[in-house]
C-alpha cells in the first residue's frame, strides 16, 4: 500500500509541476528587453526571471543579505580591486557556457560604454568602476577608481546582469565586434542565464517565458508564463475575473475593493520604493528667496494627500529616505513637515506679493499626478500662496521658466545613493537642468556620503545634505505611491521587499500555484 502511494505520488509530481502555466495581464509590456539600457518601471518587471547578476541578495528581507549567484565568492584583493570566482557549469539560454569572457563583456559594456543608451545609464551609478578584466576562465577582477562602500550593491544592479558575448556580437555586422546594432538586436532576442528563457517576445504586446531546464539554481516553479499587455484597467480587471489572466498588474487604489469583494480573487500590494516628488526651481527669479520655497513645501499636507488619493496606503516620509535603504535609513530625521502657520509667516517675511506660482504636471504620467497637483495648489491657497496647475505632457524640468512641478525619484538600488544620490548629485540631473544649485560645502558632504566606508560618517553626511535641502528647498518627497496586483486566490505571490520596484519575481520559492 505504501509502495503504491509512493509511486502514485512520484508519478504525480512531475505532472503536477508541468501543469504550471499562468498568464499575467500587464498594463505595459516592454518594447525591448535589455537589462543594461533599461531603467524604466515597465522594464524592471521582467529582467529578474531571465537574467542573473554576479551577486544576488535575499529578496525576502529588507536588509541586504548578499548571496552567491553567478559568482560563488568575492573578496577585495586590494582596496579598489574585487576578485570574483565564477560559478562553473552555468549555461545561457542558447546553450553556450558562461565564462569569464561573457562576464567581462557584460560589465564592460556598461563600465566602458560606447552605446549611447548604456553611456547615460552607466555614468550616474557605475562611474567609479573603470573596468572589469579576466584573470582566468572562472575568475574576474573589477577595478574601482576609489574605495567603494557599495561594492555588492552596485555589482547586483540590473544594469550589470550577465549576457553572452559571442551571441550578442554575432547578432549583426561583424561577429567579432560589438556594434550599436548588436545591442539593439539583443533587446529583441534577449538571452540570459536565469530560470526562465524568453521563448517569445512581441514588443509592446506579449512576452512568453518558458522554464529553462539547464538553469544553474533551483528549477523554476512554472513551466510557462504568458505576459500579455492589457492597457485598459477595466479590461485587465475583467480578464482576471474571466480567468483570461491569473495575475494582473497596476490596479488603482480605488479599484482594489472590486477585486477583494470577489471570493475567487485577492490583491497584493506594497508602497513602492519610489517617491513622487514636487520639485522647485531655485533659480527662478521670483523664487530665489528660499523662504518662498520653504512656504511652498510647508503648506502641503502630505498626509491629507495620502488619505484622499491613496486611501492612506501610501507612505509619507519625514525626509528623503526609505526603509529599503537599510543601515542608511534615518526615519528619525525630520526635514519635511506640514506647517501652514509657518508658511504664512515666512511669506510675510519674504514680502510675497501674491504672484502666481505655476505647478506643472502631465495629464496622466504619474498615477494621481494631476489630482495631487490640484490638491496642492488648493493647499497653497490655504497657506497664502497663489498657485496654478499647468497641464502639459512636455517635460519642463529643464526650463528656466519652471517654478514647480511633479517628478519621481525611484530607488534604482537600495541605498540613498540609488535614489537621492542619483537625482541630486553635484552635476547630476537636477543641477545640470539648472534648477538646483550646489556649492563646495554640498559637494563635500556629498563626497563623504557617497564614498566613505564608514556607515556612521555616511549617515552624518546624508543628514547634512538633507538639512541643506530643508534650508534651500528644491524638492519635497510627497509619498511612496501604493502599487497593487490582483490575482486568483490559488496563486501565492507578492512583491518582495528586497527588490527594486515592480519586479515580477517568479523564481523558486517566490511564487506558488495551488491545485492545477
Amino acid at each position: 500500500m505504501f509502495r503504491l502511494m509512493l509511486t502514485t505520488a512520484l508519478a504525480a509530481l512531475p505532472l503536477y509541476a508541468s501543469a504550471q502555466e499562468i498568464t499575467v495581464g500587464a498594463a505595459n509590456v516592454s518594447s525591448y528587453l535589455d537589462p543594461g539600457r533599461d531603467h524604466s518601471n515597465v522594464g524592471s518587471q521582467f529582467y529578474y526571471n531571465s537574467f542573473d547578476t554576479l551577486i544576488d541578495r535575499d529578496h525576502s528581507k529588507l536588509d541586504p543579505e548578499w548571496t552567491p549567484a553567478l559568482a560563488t565568492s568575492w573578496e577585495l584583493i586590494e582596496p579598489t580591486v574585487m576578485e570574483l570566482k565564477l560559478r562553473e557549469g552555468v549555461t545561457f539560454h542558447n546553450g553556450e557556457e558562461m565564462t569569464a569572457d561573457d562576464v567581462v563583456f557584460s560589465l564592460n559594456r556598461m563600465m566602458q560604454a560606447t552605446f549611447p543608451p548604456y553611456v547615460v545609464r552607466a555614468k550616474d551609478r557605475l562611474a567609479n568602476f573603470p573596468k572589469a578584466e579576466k584573470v582566468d576562465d572562472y575568475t574576474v577582477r573589477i577595478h574601482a577608481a576609489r574605495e567603494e562602500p557599495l561594492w555588492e550593491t552596485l555589482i547586483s544592479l540590473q544594469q550589470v546582469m550577465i549576457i553572452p558575448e559571442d551571441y550578442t556580437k554575432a547578432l549583426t555586422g561583424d561577429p567579432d565586434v560589438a556594434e550599436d546594432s548588436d545591442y539593439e538586436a539583443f533587446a529583441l532576442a534577449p538571452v540570459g542565464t536565469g530560470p526562465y528563457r524568453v521563448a517569445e517576445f512581441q514588443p509592446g504586446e506579449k512576452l512568453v517565458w518558458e522554464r529553462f531546464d539547464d538553469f544553474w539554481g533551483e528549477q523554476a516553479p512554472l513551466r510557462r508564463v504568458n505576459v500579455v499587455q492589457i492597457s485598459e484597467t477595466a479590461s485587465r480587471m475583467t480578464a482576471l475575473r474571466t480567468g483570461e489572466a491569473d495575475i494582473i498588474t497596476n490596479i488603482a487604489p480605488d479599484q482594489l475593493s472590486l477585486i477583494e469583494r470577489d471570493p475567487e480573487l485577492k490583491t497584493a500590494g506594497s508602497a513602492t520604493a519610489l517617491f513622487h516628488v514636487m520639485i522647485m526651481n531655485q533659480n527662478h527669479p521670483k523664487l530665489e528667496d528660499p523662504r518662498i520655497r520653504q512656504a511652498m513645501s510647508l503648506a502641503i499636507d502630505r498626509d491629507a494627500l495620502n488619505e484622499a488619493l491613496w486611501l492612506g496606503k501610501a507612505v509619507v516620509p519625514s525626509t528623503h529616505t526609505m526603509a529599503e535603504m537599510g543601515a542608511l535609513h534615518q526615519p528619525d530625521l525630520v526635514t519635511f513637515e506640514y506647517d501652514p502657520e509657518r508658511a504664512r509667516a515666512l511669506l510675510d517675511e519674504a514680502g510675497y506679493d501674491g504672484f502666481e506660482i505655476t505647478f506643472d504636471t502631465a495629464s496622466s504620467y504619474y498615477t494621481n499626478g494631476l489630482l495631487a497637483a490640484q490638491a496642492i495648489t488648493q493647499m497653497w491657497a490655504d497657506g497664502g500662496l497663489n498657485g496654478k496647475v499647468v497641464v502639459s505632457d512636455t517635460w519642463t524640468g529643464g526650463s528656466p521658466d519652471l517654478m514647480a512641478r511633479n517628478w519621481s525619484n525611484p530607488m534604482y538600488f537600495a541605498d540613498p545613493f540609488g535614489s537621492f544620490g542619483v537625482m541630486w548629485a553635484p552635476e547630476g540631473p537636477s543641477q545640470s537642468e539648472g534648477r538646483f544649485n550646489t556649492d563646495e560645502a554640498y559637494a563635500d558632504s556629498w563626497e563623504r556620503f557617497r564614498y566613505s566606508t564608514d556607515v556612521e560618517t555616511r549617515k552624518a553626511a546624508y543628514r547634512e545634505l538633507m538639512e541643506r535641502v530643508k534650508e534651500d528647498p528644491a524638492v519635497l518627497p510627497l509619498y511612496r505611491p501604493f502599487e497593487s496586483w490582483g490575482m486568483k486566490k490559488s496563486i501565492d505571490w507578492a512583491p518582495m521587499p528586497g527588490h527594486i520596484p515592480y519586479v515580477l519575481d517568479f523564481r523558486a520559492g517566490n511564487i506558488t500555484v495551488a491545485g492545477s
Partner: protein
Amino acid sequence: MIAYLARISVKSVVTLFAIVTVTFIATRLSGNPIDTFLGDGLTAEGRAELIRYFQLDGTLWQQYVAFLRGVVSGEFGLSFVDRRPVTQVVGERLWASGQLLLASVTLTILVAIPLGILAAIYRKSWIGSAVMTVAFAGYAVPSFILAILMVLVFSYWLNWLPVVGNGSFLHFIMPTIAMSGVLVAALTRFTRNAMLDVLGQDFIRTARAKGLSEARVVLRHGLGNAGVTVISVIGLQVAGLAAAGSVVVESIFSWPGIGQLLVNAALIRDYPVLQFGVITVAVAVVAINALTDVAYALADPRIRLARS
C-alpha cells in the same frame, strides 16, 4: 474616365501630404520621446547625447526635410523604442486591424441593408418605427460605451466572452459589434431614406404595373437604384471607422492592431511609428474614398459621363 481617375489621384496625394505634414508637426510640438519613455534622472548632457543618437538634434525644418526625403525613398526609419523598421512594426499589426475592419463591414452590410429596406417598406407600421428607434439609439451610443457595456455584461457578469486579444472566433464577437454599432445605425437610416426616395419614383410604379413581384420590385429596381447612395455612405463610414473607431475598440479589447499601436506610440512619442502608422491609416482612408468614388461612378453612368 481616365481624367476622372487622374483627378482622384491628385486629390489623394495632396490629402496625404497634408496629413503627413500635420502629423509631423503635431507630434513634435507635443513633447519628445526622451522625456516620455527614457525615464527620469538624465543629466542635461545625457539627454543631449540621446537626442543626437535618435537624430532629433536638427531644427524642426531639417528634420522635416529629412523625413520627406525618407518618405520619397521609402525609408520610414526605425522605431525609437524597439529599433525595428517601422514598416515592420506597423506591418505586423495590419492584418489584425484589417480582419476586424472586414468583419465589422460585413456585419454592417448584412444587418443594416435588410433593416433599412424593412424600415422603408413598413415605414407606416410599428416595424418601421421600431427599426428607426433602435437605429437612432445606436447612432447615439459611442463605440467605447457599447464596448464597455458588452464587456460588463458578457464577460464580467456572464463570463461568456473573452476580452483579451484576437485568438479565436469568440474574440471577434464583441469588438466587431462595438465597431459596427454606429455604422449599422447610420447605414440603416441611409438605406431607408434612399429606398423611400426611389420607391416613390415613377419607374417603380411602372414596374409594379408590369406585374413584377414585390420582391423583384424592391430588390432589383428599388435597391438597384438606391445602391448608389448606399455605396457612398458605406465608403465614407468605413473610412471613418478605419481611422478612428479602431483606436478605442482595439485598446479596450487589447486587439493587437494598428489602433492600439498608435495609442502607445503617441503616449511615448515614438515619432517614426506614429508617422508611419498615421500614413498607413491615411492611405487606407484615401484609398477607400477613391474606391468609393470609382464604385459610385461605375454604379451611376450619369456621374461618370458628366465628369468626363
